[in-house]
């Protein structure tokens, strides 16, 4: 029987011909493997292979990090891998009423521990439907401001059998111009194009920001970063399981601003230009409801920081001049009336002290307060047959 060190100790001296044959065969095999990889594009399928929910517990929020080494987490673009690493990928238990909480960084929970997010507080509430099913809440927020990203994630997450969808949004996610800005969206061009075609979204499928892969990009060499990310996601699973940490928490952070310049402009718009009808991507909201189909959706206009500092008569906060936010809210009300969207507007429901480093990021207490506000409405929706 060959010894295990056969690689290091060849049984016979190598000859130049033998070496040349090895090199040629290795090169051919490598080229063939790359060609097969490019042809089959197995990356989405590979994303479904996950140690999470099997060897390690599923993550309570989607993978995302700007500091992987300290947060045992990373940002990647493989939607299947992202969702399979999440606890939502566990088989749905009998008697479970599954609620997906979609949204931006405020839902994901920047600066919040996994058990301090909106979804976590709702889950901890132990709510049940009238027919006795236990309501389980899954945090599918992702720290990017774009409705298209939420639509894309919902499209993938519908496979996990939701019974209700909670969708906190804010004006910053609406501008049409930034729907294709997010790297997660750009790296999933095929999925986005499919959604544009399916729901007739007023977005350009040929937009150069959507990243198309060449044949070389689809080889093993071209996909080496994506493959390494898949491996890293699994390895960080062990560290996540050992520490329960999925985000780096700095000792201090720069708090959201309270004083502003005398400036009422927003994304190139002024009170004089007003808020044009097609400036906001309402069609994506329509598509979101359409994609959810029979699954009820509660759209929440999420709380924002309301300043009383310098020039607060012009601006609510660093993001929003008063005029544009008011216009957005009235447009949201009109659309919800016209299209029958269930909307909960809690924009001013949280005290200013409960905001951390941005106009929408909440403290644990703010997050809990928001959960308390939303829960009764969700229960009402869940009561409906």
């Amino acid at each position, binding site marked *: 029987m060959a010894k295990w060190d056969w*690689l*290091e100790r*060849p049984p016979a*001296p*190598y*000859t*130049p011909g*033998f*070496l040349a044959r090895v090199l040629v065969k290795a090169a051919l095999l490598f080229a063939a493997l790359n060609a097969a990889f490019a042809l089959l594009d197995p990356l989405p399928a590979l994303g479904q292979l996950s140690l999470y929910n099997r060897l390690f517990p599923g993550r309570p929020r989607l993978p995302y990090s700007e500091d*992987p*080494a*300290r947060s*045992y987490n990373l940002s990647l673009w493989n939607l299947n891998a992202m969702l399979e690493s999440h606890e939502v990928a566990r088989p749905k238990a009998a008697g479970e009423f599954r609620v997906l909480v979609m949204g931006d960084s405020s839902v994901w929970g920047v600066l919040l521990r996994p058990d301090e997010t909106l979804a976590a507080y709702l889950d901890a509430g132990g709510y049940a439907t009238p027919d006795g099913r236990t309501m389980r809440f899954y945090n599918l927020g992702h720290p990017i401001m774009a409705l298209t990203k939420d639509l894309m994630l919902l499209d993938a997450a519908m496979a996990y059998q939701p019974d209700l969808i909670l969708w906190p949004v804010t004006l910053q996610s609406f501008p049409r111009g930034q729907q294709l800005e997010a790297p997660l969206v750009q790296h999933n061009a095929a999925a986005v194009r499919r959604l544009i075609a399916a729901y007739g979204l007023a977005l350009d499928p040929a937009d150069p920001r959507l990243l198309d892969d060449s044949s070389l990009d689809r080889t093993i060499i071209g996909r080496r970063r994506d493959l390494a990310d898949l*491996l*890293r996601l699994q*390895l*960080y699973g*062990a*560290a996540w*399981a*050992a*520490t*329960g*940490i999925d985000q780096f928490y700095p000792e201090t952070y720069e708090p959201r601003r309270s004083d502003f310049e005398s400036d009422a402009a927003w994304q190139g718009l002024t009170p004089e230009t007003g808020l044009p009808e097609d400036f906001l991507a309402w069609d994506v909201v329509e598509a979101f409801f359409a994609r959810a189909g029979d699954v009820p959706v509660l759209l929440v206009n999420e709380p924002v920081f309301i300043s009383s500092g310098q020039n607060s008569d012009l601006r609510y906060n660093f993001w929003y001049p008063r005029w544009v936010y008011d216009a957005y809210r009235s447009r949201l009300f009109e659309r919800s009336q016209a299209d029958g969207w269930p909307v909960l507007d809690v924009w001013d429901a949280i005290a200013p002290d409960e905001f951390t480093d941005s106009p929408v990021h909440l403290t644990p207490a703010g997050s809990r307060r928001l959960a308390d506000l939303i829960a009764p409405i969700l229960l009402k929706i869940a009561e409906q047959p």
Partner: protein
Amino acid sequence: MQLSHIALFAAGGLLYAGFCPPRQRGWLLMIASVVTLYWLQPTLTIFYLDFALPTATLALALAVWWVTRPPESPVSREDRLALALLAGLVLALSATRYLAPELRPTASRAPDVPPVALALLLLGLAGWALRRLFGARHGALTAALIVLVALFIVLKTPPLATGLAAALRGLTGQNQALAAPLDLEWLGFSYVAFRLIHTVRERQMGKLPALSLREYVTYSIFFPAITAGPIDRAERFVRDDRALLPGANSPDEKTAPRLLTAPRLAEAGGRIGMGLFKKFVIADSLALLALNAANAGQAQSAGALWLLLYAYAFRLFFDFSGYTDIAIGLGVLLGFKLPENFDRPYLKNNLAAFWQSWHITLSSWARFYVFSPLSRALLRRKVSAQAAVFLAQMATMLIIGLWHGVSGGFIVWGVWHGLGLFAHKWWSDRTRKWYLSLNQKPRLKTAWTAAGIFITFQFVTLGWVWFTLPLETAWRAFLGLFGIAS
């Protein structure tokens, strides 16, 4: 060493093996080793120190070569040529300050040529004066030993290193409050110092062969082994070096051994490939979850701590043995058979066998120059054999610990292994007969061996807690591994 360095070394090695005239091989290796010494030196915050430290390495090698030369051996023409070449190389490297930053082989912009020339001249004068001062050969050897050990202690002791860094910062007019041990990150010093000490001790024992300056410098700073060893023996290294020259293995003085052969390429390629896989695939992946000062305090359970600790144990092995494979592979390409540093250490069934297969060249060094002389000296002083072995083992493991750094963690790690080795000896002395009787019971022997492997691995792995964590964190983590919260 990064991937780009290794790729360049491998490509350079192929060119050297294929095209370097045999007579020039030794010279080319010395030049490549000197340039690499400067090239791999990390950038330092103290002005010009990242140029001064490699220069100091060369000066140390030169000084120790001088004192370890056999008294009867004259300085040859080749030695003078090597000396001139070394000085010329240092000056040429300082002249690269005029090149564009991306073309410079030094860590940062080198000092100007005239001050470097002046410094070299002063160094030469100092060497000459010291030679006059230490006329007696034995005194010079002892002085060299003291200087090397003192330097080692200063660099490896954080408060002393910080003090030296502050003094250097004072000389350069930089903020002394910012001084830190990392200011003195000296590429390969630990390995170079142990090679130099080896030659001093071998000379004191009369075992060191006469080495030319070129051979000595190349041995001290051989570029494949500068960052992570192995710590070769001078006489073995020089045997390989001389075998590269024309007429070394053939009566025909013009015939030199061919380097670019299929078996050599296969062996070198295999070792380098294996090393790359171990280091850059396995070790770097395990690094994502290996135990460190940050995650030790974050682990939520004893099981989690064990997971992080096992990841660290395997990461350390694959990282270090991967670099060793790369060094050995590059050595093969250049015509050298560097010594092995690892031999499946985690599969050994007792601690003594582990230390004969983990960082073999360092543990051999410590056995030759600490354990053997110390135990002999203790026995001569009528200390009981058991006490002599205990003290010598403890001292040897402490030296190995302190080689990594003078800190509480490394001391505890050294004591941990010293005690473990002593316990193993005590146990094996008392169970030898019974163990031999196991030859009649192969199944029981296999089970006993498996248990030995498991226990040895657990013991070594627990020891890594002290090796990798600051002392206070290590203590908490150690207790945490057994479910005890401190």
